[in-house]
């Protein structure tokens, strides 16, 4: 017997759970503004999240998936991407989307049951993907287009731990590897796929090692350390941009809330587990670090919270002000030009009024 191949999976963390640096910090950390911006976005997301849940509870929004506890993943990722890269998100990546032209009211509109939520201010990004794992294949397709056109652009797919069980996920990785595509896969491992814990999703020690099956690098990072997320995403994205091929990043985080507003997580997991995870959440950590550095105060915090609340209320207002849907909207976008039979159906539909509680 000889060993013919060897692999290992590295783990990256900059700030530990107490907000203390554990290794030399990346250069960008020197810049207060960058850190403030990351912190601000995470806070905005948290305030928005609570508001969205409240809207759902009062019947103003449909089912909504909370991002509580995972803010660092999408915020750090969004900060690492170029605007002309393309994002293929799942449904907890608001933190990246709002850095790329998607508004909070777009997000409300989407979860409010309105396709206009996907008509957002980025020309090429994909809308949220609900069929789990399917978007990973779109990202490799987008990366194929970049590679074919010799553009220095990168496609990024984000999915959850549960998504790593889907065939599409592996097929995407495999294609990315064999064509050396400019694509980065982020697995937001929040430890749960609805009620199924990470340990019953797969026997792997890490999800990062799934990249070994496709012949490229997999990294595990502390996904609650926004510095690690931004730094390692940026590194992987720049590697992809310069011909270095794909990377899989497993971002370790935790879904502190229910799966969605339709879920009740207390049915399947213990308070203790959640409390433990709570201690590692991303905002507190960065706040501690900024405070230690003398750059943050309770006053600044209160100001920021008020500012975020205002932004969120504006978004809610914009959401409420959106024009009513019409039956025509069901028909007008299936084809570039409406076929004759659909035109007839459109006419028929218009004769029957739309009734909807949320409209």
């Amino acid at each position, binding site marked *: 017997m000889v060993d013919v191949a060897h692999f290992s999976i590295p783990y990256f963390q900059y700030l530990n759970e107490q907000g203390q640096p554990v290794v030399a910090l990346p250069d960008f950390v020197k810049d207060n503004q960058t850190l403030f911006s990351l912190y601000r976005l995470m806070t905005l997301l948290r305030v928005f999240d609570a508001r969205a849940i409240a809207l759902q509870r009062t019947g103003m929004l449909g089912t909504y998936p909370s991002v509580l506890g995972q803010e660092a993943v999408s915020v750090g990722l969004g900060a690492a991407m170029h605007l002309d890269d393309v994002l293929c998100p799942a449904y907890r990546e608001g933190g990246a989307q709002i850095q790329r032209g998607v508004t909070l009211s777009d997000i409300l509109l989407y979860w409010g*049951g309105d396709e206009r939520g996907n008509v957002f201010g980025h020309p090429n990004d994909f809308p949220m993907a609900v069929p789990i794992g399917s978007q990973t294949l779109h990202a490799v397709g987008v990366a194929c287009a970049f590679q074919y056109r010799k553009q220095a652009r990168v496609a990024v797919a984000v999915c959850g731990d*549960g998504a790593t069980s889907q065939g599409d996920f592996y097929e995407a990785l495999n294609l990315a590897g064999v064509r050396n595509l400019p694509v980065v896969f982020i697995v937001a491992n929040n430890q749960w796929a*609805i009620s199924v814990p990470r340990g019953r999703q797969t026997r792997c020690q890490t999800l990062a090692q799934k990249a070994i099956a496709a012949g490229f690098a997999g990294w595990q990072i502390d996904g609650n350390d926004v510095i690690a997320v931004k730094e390692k995403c940026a590194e992987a994205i720049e590697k992809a941009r310069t011909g270095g091929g794909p990377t899989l990043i497993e971002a370790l985080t935790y879904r502190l809330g229910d799966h969605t507003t339709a879920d009740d997580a207390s*049915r399947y997991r213990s308070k203790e587990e959640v409390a433990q995870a709570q201690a590692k959440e991303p905002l507190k950590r960065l706040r501690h670090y900024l405070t230690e550095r003398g750059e943050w105060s309770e006053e600044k915090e209160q100001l920021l919270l008020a500012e975020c609340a205002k932004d969120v209320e504006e978004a809610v207002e914009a959401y409420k002000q959106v024009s009513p849907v019409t039956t025509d909207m069901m028909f007008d976008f299936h084809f570039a030009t409406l076929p004759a039979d659909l035109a007839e159906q459109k006419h028929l539909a218009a004769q*029957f009024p739309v009734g*909807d509680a949320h*409209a």
Partner: protein
Amino acid sequence: MPEITLLEAVNQALAYEMQRDENVIVLGEDVGTNGGVFRATQGLLQKFGAERVWDTPLAESMIAGMSIGMASQGLKPVAEFQFMGFSYPGLDQIINHAARLRNRTRGRLSCPVVFRTPYGAGIHAPEHHSESTEAIYAHTPGLRVVIPSSPARAYGLLLAAIRDPDPVIFLEPTRLYRLVKQNVPDEGEALPLDQCFVLREGSDVTLVSWGAMLHETMNVARALDQEGISCEVIDVATIKPLDRDTLLNSVEKTGRCVIIHEAPLTAGMGAEIAAILAEQALFFLQAPIVRVAGYDVTVPYFKLEKAYLPSEARIKEAVLTVLQ
């Protein structure tokens, strides 16, 4: 005996049959600890243990394919797809294998599996949670396709589906899950898998429907009754194989037929029923056969789902048209 919902009837049938036959295994995403996202499998884990109720990894082709392997060895997996819109990754395994295993091996192996899934629109769910693509399965030789529309029929048909030695697609109208309650004796009585149910006898026109649309259809029938129009209402229930006799007998009697379904019009099951009537009852027809169906568009996000679903107004208008 307390009255139960369709959802509870599904649960009751599962529990009954798991008790009766230890080959029955319930599996799917979140069916265990969580009892299913709608609670259809609630309590089964507690009652039958983790050896009989499996939370699977998140992969529908896997759910379909592993069920085929299990069924080939004589187990009776009852597999859940969390929503019909997420069943499509399983289509290859269902079409190419589940539906064919018995025929391919000339009966040496078989595939007694039930694929259950919430079905249809109307519950304000996010996108992909509102599909009704029964026609895809109905077009596939080797499958049975069943859609219950009441607690009692859910119980009796699900028992029959599990006991059936061949693969059954069992579609549960989410809109009906908690809409009505009924007394459903838990006595293990199965219903036949190849018979329509006449929900209401009538003489002027035959209304054919299935699943949640029967709710609106019955409402229209009742309203028209007030106006002196007598509607016969048929619940197809067993979409495949189709009970043509009940349909033909009714239309031969009434001479008029409206077919109502929420799936998109084109190549839906309504077309099949209309085609059968046009071939076998043509000279009994006193009016064109009208289909009131979903439009040929993707089920819209929920702000528009009511506009998508055939409304009572549309159904009524169609009935009045064929009565002219």
